[in-house]
């Protein structure tokens, strides 16, 4: 349908996050469209460019390094927000907490008694043969049973507007800084779009994260020293590390700032060594401790794992969570939720065919041209074949890869991701998007209202990843008690 304000806008068969009629959204979508129209295309472009310029000035960037130059790029920002109603958010919030609860129970089990394997719900080799399974974690209890302290769950919406989980990110998910920065940017550059619209705030993230990091610190210190461990300025997510350290109010450290003595972790300060109690690390497992994992890594701290196992420091996320967000394990998540919580998933997975199972492989081979074929070990949208858009040669290559190593693949039906109006070179048009809510868990779980909306900036593209030209939008969760204060925009 096309709204009265934009006769040329056509979302086609896709669910549109703005123009699809949702009574509980009240007048907000209409206001937004009318206000955008009143600003007008020319002014909108000028202001959108100014907003992006602001991101460059503020250094809200990720850096792409080549031999001689360092190029700062921004994550493209689209100024037309994505709206979630209070009801939609209530469902998303509960579903995210359910999912994280199950992920933590699953990790506690597989690094403990492994009942789920013994009961035949999940195949043993999928867990114990997984490259991300860390034997070091076996029988090592973590505070509050929390392994995944920060989780990002990628959620999409199909043609009918049903939410579906696409992927769990349980290692070191990034993007939360953009959620907060996008909101600040909207408040500064488009106050007139937001006037009179009450939203759930996003600026509590740092405090919540710090509280969770305090929750998990070794007992006995009333004011534990929390630090954020970053690989340093050459990491593409460095801006986010800065952001989080600042929002939490804790030192941003690198491996070279830390040392371990007598199974205790210290940081080097100008007034001597200071003990560290919780490390929020933005470093992969492999790099954490050269004495245990990659010996050549200089990013981590020798002895860190020993200090952790001695109970003198907490590490978030815990080591070994990668086994839970693996795309092959993802396929089992509905069964995992049922197994531990005795609940149906509040938000279903995208229908997934597990090619390691004969049935799944056969179905995939028979329907290759209709399916999206994904390698289980990759992230960032790499290695994916989109059947309906693939050439004959690409389909043949996918078939050969499937047959060569079925265990490495899953397939899913092609989902027509929902769209939202987005400013492009040819005006305002529908672009596909997804949503990554962030869940913080110490003793309990808390979900940042909204999350990161990633949008494919190219018309027709389904790939929203920032590494492949995706951008982002401010995500508005309408406040529960929202009632319009003014009759017209």
């Amino acid at each position: 349908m096309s709204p009265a304000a934009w006769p040329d806008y056509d979302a086609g068969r896709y669910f549109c996050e703005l123009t699809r009629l949702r009574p509980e959204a009240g007048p907000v979508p209409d206001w937004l469209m009318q206000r955008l129209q009143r600003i007008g295309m020319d002014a909108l472009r000028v202001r959108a460019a100014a907003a992006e310029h602001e991101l460059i000035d503020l250094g809200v960037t990720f850096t792409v390094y080549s031999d001689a130059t360092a190029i700062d790029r921004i994550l493209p920002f689209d100024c037309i927000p994505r709206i979630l109603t209070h009801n939609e958010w209530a469902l998303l919030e509960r579903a995210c907490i359910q999912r994280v609860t199950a992920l933590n129970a699953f990790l506690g089990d597989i690094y403990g008694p492994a009942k789920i394997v013994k009961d035949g719900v999940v195949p043993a080799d999928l867990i114990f043969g997984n490259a991300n399974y860390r034997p070091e974690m076996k029988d090592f209890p973590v505070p509050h049973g929390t392994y995944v302290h920060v989780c990002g769950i990628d959620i999409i919406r199909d043609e009918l507007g049903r939410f579906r989980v696409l992927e769990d990110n349980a290692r070191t998910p990034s993007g939360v800084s953009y959620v907060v920065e996008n909101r600040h940017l909207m408040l500064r550059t488009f106050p007139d779009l937001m006037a009179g619209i009450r939203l759930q705030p996003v600026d509590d993230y740092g405090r919540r994260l710090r509280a969770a990091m305090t929750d998990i610190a070794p007992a006995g210190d009333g004011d534990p020293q929390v630090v954020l461990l970053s690989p340093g300025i050459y990491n593409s997510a460095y801006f986010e590390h800065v952001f989080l350290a600042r929002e939490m109010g804790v030192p941003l450290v690198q491996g070279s700032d830390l040392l371990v003595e007598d199974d205790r972790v210290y940081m080097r300060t100008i007034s001597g060594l200071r003990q560290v109690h919780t490390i929020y690390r933005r470093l992969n497992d492999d790099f954490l401790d050269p004495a245990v994992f990659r010996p050549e890594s200089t990013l981590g701290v020798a002895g860190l794992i020993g200090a952790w196992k001695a109970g003198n420091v907490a590490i978030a996320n815990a080591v070994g969570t990668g086994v839970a967000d693996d795309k092959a394990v993802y396929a089992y998540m509905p069964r995992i939720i049922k197994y531990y919580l005795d609940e149906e998933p509040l938000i279903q997975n995208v229908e997934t065919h597990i090619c390691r199972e004969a049935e799944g492989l056969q179905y995939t081979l028979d329907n290759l041209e209709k399916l999206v074929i994904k390698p289980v070990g990759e992230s960032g949208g790499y290695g994916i074949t989109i059947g309906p858009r693939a050439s004959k040669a690409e389909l043949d290559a996918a078939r050969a890869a499937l047959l060569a190593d079925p265990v490495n693949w899953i397939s899913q039906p092609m989902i027509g991701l929902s769209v939202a109006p987005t400013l492009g070179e040819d005006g305002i048009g529908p672009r596909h998007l997804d949503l990554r809510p962030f869940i913080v868990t110490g003793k309990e779980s808390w979900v940042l209202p909204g999350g990161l909306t990633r949008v494919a900036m190219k018309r027709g593209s389904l790939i929203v990843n920032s590494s492949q030209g995706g951008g982002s939008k401010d995500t508005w969760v309408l406040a529960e008690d929202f009632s319009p204060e003014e009759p017209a925009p």
Partner: protein
Amino acid sequence: MSGMRFDPVLLSRDAEGLFWMARYLERVENLARLIDVTQSFESPGYETDAWFGLIRINADEKNFAERGFSPDADHVKRFYLLDKGNPTSVPAMLEEARTNARTLRPLMSTEMWRQLNVFQRYVSGLTAADLEGDALSRLCTRLKDGVQAHTGITEGTLYRDQGWYFYELGRLVERADQTTRMLDIKYTALLPRDGEEKRMAELTQWNAVLRAAAGYHAFKRLTRASFSAEDVVHFLLRDPSSARSVLLCVRRAEAHLDDLRRIYGLHGAGEPMEVAEYLRELLLEKPLGHILSAGLHDYLDFVQIHIQKLAAAIGRAFFRDWRPELPALPGGALSSQSQSQSDGAPEAAA
């Protein structure tokens, strides 16, 4: 119970980063001053000598030749203002300052970061057209403005804990060093042989040095109608109130080190304080007449060496190869473990 913490943590690496960020920015401002004054020393037919003097006082001869430049006014300008591959160029130093700032962002205000970010981007986009004719002087003004805006924003927004002291120490050490170089530029400048012409030329040059050091008007207020070279040297080396005098910088550095020791209990400040004290005595011990007749250039060299010693002492005490004592742990004996030091520290340019 109050939610505030009164024992802020400062990582050694961050202290070093603050020190160097301030040094690089101060150096950019002073290089702009030196370039500006060099331009005013330029006399038709002697451009090359005037500009190559800049290379000499910065001890950049080797670097200059290795970068493929030849002694020529235009090349010197490009070497310092456009050549990103030259570590002593304005764009390279600003890049270094910004790289340090990136590691320090949790300690800095957003305004500080934003200004530095925008300033660095402007400088990295300079072209040959910005060095031509009257554009060069405007560029120098903009460079000074850029650093001074940084200084002002820092003054108004940077939290005054230990980190601020290290930032200030970096600025003071660099400024003291740069003032000696500004005085040294007279050494390389050409003069007519003798007579009234020489006296006039010399006067013009000293005035230019004073202007470069932003001390011209204050100097005029303080001195008699006729002044001597000795007066200018006194003003820039020993005047207790001239903002860029070496003595003022050293005294303030000493006071900051003393604060670090007293307020924050950093006993490591003792050694650099001794170096600063020696430097202060060195600045005051001999009558200036003796120094000038024995050769100002050699004396300035000597002062520069001791300024570098001060920087090194601060580094040893707080940044590099520094192995503080462990707090007492139950069980006593501690294994000694060799530690790799942070390798992110920029090296001091000579």
